[in-house]
């Protein structure tokens, strides 16, 4: 694996090289039913903990009665060609594989979460202390890896295989005959947040712009989603331990104090665990 790519220019060396694989995904939103089969199969196959997602489906409603639409948007790591997560990882734990994957090496990761701050897509998470499977990694960063373990054995990613709508198409864009290559050639595709120059490799057909826009997602939340967000921040053990989760209905002076105390106390309570359990 001498060709791992770190740092600034992440463009994978196999891009356009005949005989080499170059994986990418096209999500055809005309076919996506928002069924979450992708989420469920990914979560169960990789023991993705509650409160973390390698892939998820954002949903929105648009328009005024009776001219109303719904939109769904499966979101996962974009396997960026210029991955901002990679260049700011201090340990080379995350890197760009020549064939297109952006991968994560758990055994190098120190759990500093810089990559999460760097990723503009919210695609990364920190694996919590407690997992369903006792032997799985913990307290290290993780994200969708384009199912490298399956793809390198000739299998499509599990989310792609499960996709009930057949919306997800995965394959080698170096092969002009492949379905992804055809779709990229023949359809108008969109990326999320292209302006950031991350060169995402997950392409969408028929993207409703608003649903892909962080501003929209932030400002136009249903009260229920907002409430869910806050209960997530409030209740999640991991959040209390390592993160400054902000419960935005509780940010007056005393709210701020509560946050500080809560965050520090759980932060220190977690320390012995980190030192004496799951060392590796």
């Amino acid at each position, binding site marked *: 694996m001498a060709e791992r790519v*770190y*740092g600034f220019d992440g463009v994978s060396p196999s891009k356009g090289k005949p005989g080499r694989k170059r994986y990418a995904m096209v999500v055809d939103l005309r076919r996506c039913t928002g069924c979450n089969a992708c989420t469920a199969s990914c979560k169960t196959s990789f023991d993705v903990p509650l*409160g973390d*997602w390698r892939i*998820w489906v*954002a*949903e*929105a*409603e648009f328009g005024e009665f009776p001219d109303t639409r719904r939109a769904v948007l499966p979101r996962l790591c974009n396997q960026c060609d210029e991955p*901002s997560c990679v260049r*700011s*990882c*201090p340990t*080379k734990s995350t890197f760009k594989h020549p064939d297109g994957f952006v991968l994560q090496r758990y055994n*190098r*990761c*120190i*759990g*500093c*979460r810089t990559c999460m*701050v760097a990723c*503009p897509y*919210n695609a990364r*998470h920190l694996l919590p202390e407690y997992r369903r499977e006792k032997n799985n990694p*913990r*307290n*290290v960063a993780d994200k969708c890896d384009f199912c490298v373990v399956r793809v390198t054995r000739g299998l499509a990613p599990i989310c792609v295989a499960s996709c009930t709508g057949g919306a997800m198409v995965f394959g080698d864009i170096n092969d002009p005959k492949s379905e992804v290559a055809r779709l990229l050639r023949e359809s108008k595709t969109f990326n999320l947040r292209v302006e*950031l*120059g*991350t060169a995402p490799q997950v392409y969408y057909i028929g993207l409703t712009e*608003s*649903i892909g826009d*962080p*501003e*929209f*997602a*932030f*400002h*136009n*939340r249903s009260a*229920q*989603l907002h409430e*869910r*967000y806050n209960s997530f*921040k409030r209740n999640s053990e991991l959040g209390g331990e390592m*993160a*400054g989760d*902000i419960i*935005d209905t509780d*940010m*007056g*002076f005393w709210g*701020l104090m509560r*946050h500080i105390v809560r*965050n*520090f106390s759980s*932060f220190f309570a977690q*320390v012995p665990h*980190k*030192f004496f359990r799951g060392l590796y």
Partner: protein
Amino acid sequence: MEGQMIANAFHHSYWGFPIALYFWLVGVSAGSFVISSLGWVFGVKKYKATAFFASNTAIIMLLIVPVLLIIDLGKPYRFFHLLLFSSFSHWSAPMVWGSCFIMSYPIAMMCYSYFVYQKNERWARRLGILAVVLALCTHWYTGVVMQLNPSRVPNHTSVAPILFLTGAYVSGIGFLICCLWVRNKFLAAEKQVPIELIADMARLMLYGIIFDLFLLGNEFLQMTYGVAEEHTMLYDVLLGVFRWPYLYLEIVWGLLLPLVILVIPKINRRMSWVLGAAFMCATGVYGMRIWWVMGTYYYQGHY
């Protein structure tokens, strides 16, 4: 109503109050050290007396820093991999630069302190220069870590490191004044740091406050004319979630009130007022660290 999101995933905020505290500590340390260096490096004689104490304060602050950083890691033990195996380090990551600074800066300071203690003018100066540079770098890099994240408002601005440094300078002096006051309580009258010197330091702090306000004003301008997220940030720092850390803690408590105190003649030479201003400055900057760190992912946490 054009539309609303009804389902989305949430991910946690990445860094919390301990990291904000770490930023604050690094800043305080750097600020204190700058004062310490005034006498021995920049030749301002009257500061020589405080140099040893200031430097030690900076060292102590900075010794807490790696501990805080390391225990905040998911895998604390692996931090040492970074130090032991150079192949582990990824040089495009500002975090790696920072690790170098954080490791070397206290050593340089300790040596400096030693030579100051020994009254070794030459070496104190040499090491002082080195340590000042490292102090600035250490804090500069924390700004850079935040600055280099393309999607993060308000961090993604090249003003970030300067803003960090100014905050460091202000809070460092403020913190040092408080420490000196405490120290005075334990010392015989002749050994105490005179109020004149402290007032002088407060004056230095005042310049910092003004510069800090100037930078924040610029940032404020940018937020006002800014693109979408910046606009949102503006709302939240003034009226919303970050009002307490930003508006009250940083601006009013940490900058405006001390500014007022320090520009009023007479008052600005009285120990109690100066001490109050110093305390406000020192703590107010923590407010900046809070909203600066947590504001970054607040919006995207919903994305």
